[in-house]
């Protein structure tokens, strides 16, 4: 696989989102991955409804938090069709689940994988290139003050608390790093992105890595 790779270059990564005051990062990361993998598999890149996942994923807690693994499990079990964001727009508060008929257009998650790649970040690169952007859970305590650059220090891996989407990596420079899309708007970090040193499980980025299949 190449020394530098970013799914944004293939036009299959949607714009950075802003979860605002809702603790729904778990839904943003999952929906972001589904959007990208769906586009990669030949569909057009479309923004899918994060609000649908927040409202309907009963095994999570809406804007109070949740787990990407649980959301993916729920999506695969129910075969729910994820509809377009325009049809079920984001409100930044959890609400009542709105149902759509099975005949309605939408994207279905067929399967997913979730692994701990703590000592296998090289293999993580190949999974990313082969399957698409990856949902990961990180310890983002120090991200409160982040402005840009590659995080190489001050990022523990003891307490995973935030879900994001890895869209690529770059190993061409002095410090190899992961390219990560966050959901705190474009005014945070580098236009909404954060770069994390690759190879040391920095921020716990390799401990819970999910790939989506649509």
């Amino acid at each position: 696989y190449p020394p530098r790779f970013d799914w944004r270059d293939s036009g299959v990564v949607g714009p950075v989102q802003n979860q605002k005051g809702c603790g729904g990062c778990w839904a943003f990361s999952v929906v972001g991955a589904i959007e990208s993998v769906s586009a990669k598999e030949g569909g057009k890149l479309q923004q899918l409804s994060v609000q649908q996942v927040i409202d309907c994923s009963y095994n999570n807690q809406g804007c109070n938090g949740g787990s990407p693994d649980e959301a993916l499990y729920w999506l695969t079990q129910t075969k729910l069709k994820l509809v377009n964001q325009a049809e079920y727009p984001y409100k930044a508060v959890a609400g009542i689940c709105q149902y759509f008929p099975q005949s309605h257009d939408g994207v279905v998650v067929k399967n997913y994988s979730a692994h701990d790649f703590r000592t296998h970040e090289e293999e993580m690169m190949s999974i990313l290139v082969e399957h698409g952007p990856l949902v990961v859970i990180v310890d983002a305590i120090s991200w409160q003050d982040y402005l840009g650059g590659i995080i190489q220090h001050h990022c523990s891996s003891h307490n995973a608390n935030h879900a994001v989407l890895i869209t690529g990596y770059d190993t061409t420079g002095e410090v190899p790093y992961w390219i990560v899309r966050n959901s705190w708007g474009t005014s945070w970090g580098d236009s909404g992105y954060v770069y994390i040193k690759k190879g040391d499980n920095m921020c716990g980025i390799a401990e819970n890595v999910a790939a989506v299949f649509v």
Partner: protein
Amino acid sequence: SNEELSEGRIHFQNSIKRHALLNSVLKKSNNSARYGINQFSDLSPKQFKERYLTVQAEAAPKFDINRPGIHVKTS
């Protein structure tokens, strides 16, 4: 309210001290992370954690290089 404003100011001042610390102890290089004022600077670390760091983490099975198949949760 005045109380909230005052609290926000204290958090902001604390965040500036935090930025100085984070930036000073870094190994300086062109691509090192930079820390400074952003939209979260008037929140305390506790408030930031409560509002934005809400993932319920689950342990994933270790990746086995000899069995790199799909793991699907079954219960």
